[in-house]
């Protein structure tokens, strides 16, 4: 089991180009999915805490459904199953005429899945603000909407900045699952380099280092964000 080391391969064309492309796709998927996840996740998370039973129920169902099925399977459901369930024309459009079907599918699958996790954080954030403050706002004469707008959301958003950091990192990592539907993001590219050059060590190391760098940068950025959003002297914000 002798192994021929060759780090130079990472800097040769076309392999360097592949890595760069892989990073671009990883970012493209992660960022777009994150935007989707934030929008849907915040709506669903707020919905779960509303006094209206039906809305809360629908939002709870969403969260349970999306977080209890493996993401890989959700990718497949969106990619293979969904086009077969819609009317034929539409299915064909999705599969053939939609630009970048793998990319769009990956973003939707990853975004909606992550939304269920974001929703949980949002809900936890709102609930941790506590009934005391909520009652205070109501007693002040605020309506439900005003209470959310001026009290619950501003506080809970600040509280959930740290858990959101880790969700943001998770979405980068989970974007690697897009390789199963044929999107050549970073992990897929490193694997392809391993196949072409048989220098698996080097290829996987390159991908690992890039992921670690992404994590480091994201953590730093979020730490700054945390500092700016911290509420002076409030319990729960360290």
């Amino acid at each position: 089991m002798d192994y021929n080391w060759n780090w130079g391969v990472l800097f040769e064309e076309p392999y360097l180009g592949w890595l760069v492309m892989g990073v671009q796709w990883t970012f493209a998927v992660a960022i777009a999915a994150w935007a989707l996840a934030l929008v849907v996740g915040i709506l669903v998370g707020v919905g779960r805490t509303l006094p209206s039973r039906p809305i809360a129920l629908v939002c709870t169902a969403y969260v349970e459904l999306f977080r209890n099925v493996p993401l890989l399977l959700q990718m497949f459901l969106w990619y293979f199953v969904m086009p077969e369930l819609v009317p034929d024309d539409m299915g064909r459009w999705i599969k053939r005429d939609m630009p970048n079907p793998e990319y769009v599918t990956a973003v939707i699958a990853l975004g909606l899945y992550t939304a269920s996790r974001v929703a949980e954080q949002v809900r936890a954030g709102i609930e941790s603000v506590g009934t005391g403050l909520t009652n205070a706002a109501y007693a002040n004469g605020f309506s439900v909407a005003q209470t959310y707008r001026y009290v619950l959301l501003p506080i809970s958003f600040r509280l959930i900045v740290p858990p959101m950091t880790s969700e943001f990192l998770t979405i980068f990592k989970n974007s690697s699952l897009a390789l199963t539907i044929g999107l050549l993001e970073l992990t897929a590219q490193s694997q392809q380099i391993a196949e072409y050059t048989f220098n698996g060590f080097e290829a996987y190391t390159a991908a690992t280092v890039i992921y670690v760098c992404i994590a480091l940068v994201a953590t730093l950025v979020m730490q700054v964000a945390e500092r700016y959003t911290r509420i002076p002297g409030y319990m729960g914000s360290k």
Partner: protein
Amino acid sequence: MAGFDFAVILNNLPFLWQGLQLSLLLTGLAILGGIVFGTLLALMRLSGILPLSLLAATYVNLIRSVPLILVIFWFYFLVPLALGRPIGSFYSALIAFTLFEAAYFSEIIRAGIQSVRKGQVHAGQATGLNYWQIQRHIVLPQAFRNMIPILVTQGIILFQDTSLVFVVSLRDFMTVSSIVARTEGRLVEMYIFAACVYFVICFAGSLFVRHLQKARTA
């Protein structure tokens, strides 16, 4: 692919069951291994001995910033190289999952230990108990009781994560469902069925977690 044919599920039930067994086995063993190794990492981090806690922290943060798929690739191909002998793909995957999940378990366990109020340690010290007696009788029992719901939740996540061995064709439930789906050309039925199975198991798990939490606050 017009028309549903759910008979395909019945015909392949034994095969699917084998896959599910492998998923569950992998999950169970990885949870055990992950908790043992994770506790070790957590104790290292809280030990107050700088090299140890630095080592553990580096490991945990490294693993947590890398996608599981990449870790699986690493271990699937490199464990035999490192060991100098093949150990079979199941064990490669098991090692990958154990080491990967240990990083997550260690964070849970660390938080669990820290969730025990400092006053409890003080109370133990004030009656003259030593470090190990306090850990053994006061801190760890409370820490684990506090942690159980989160540990179970992480177990559910781990169970879902095992589906990723699909990328190396290990015959877990996900892979097996895919094989049936593709060889029989019954994608829609099989993937929906697989989703239902995962959902039922994981949802039951999260109901159990909720029950635990309610039992604890009551």
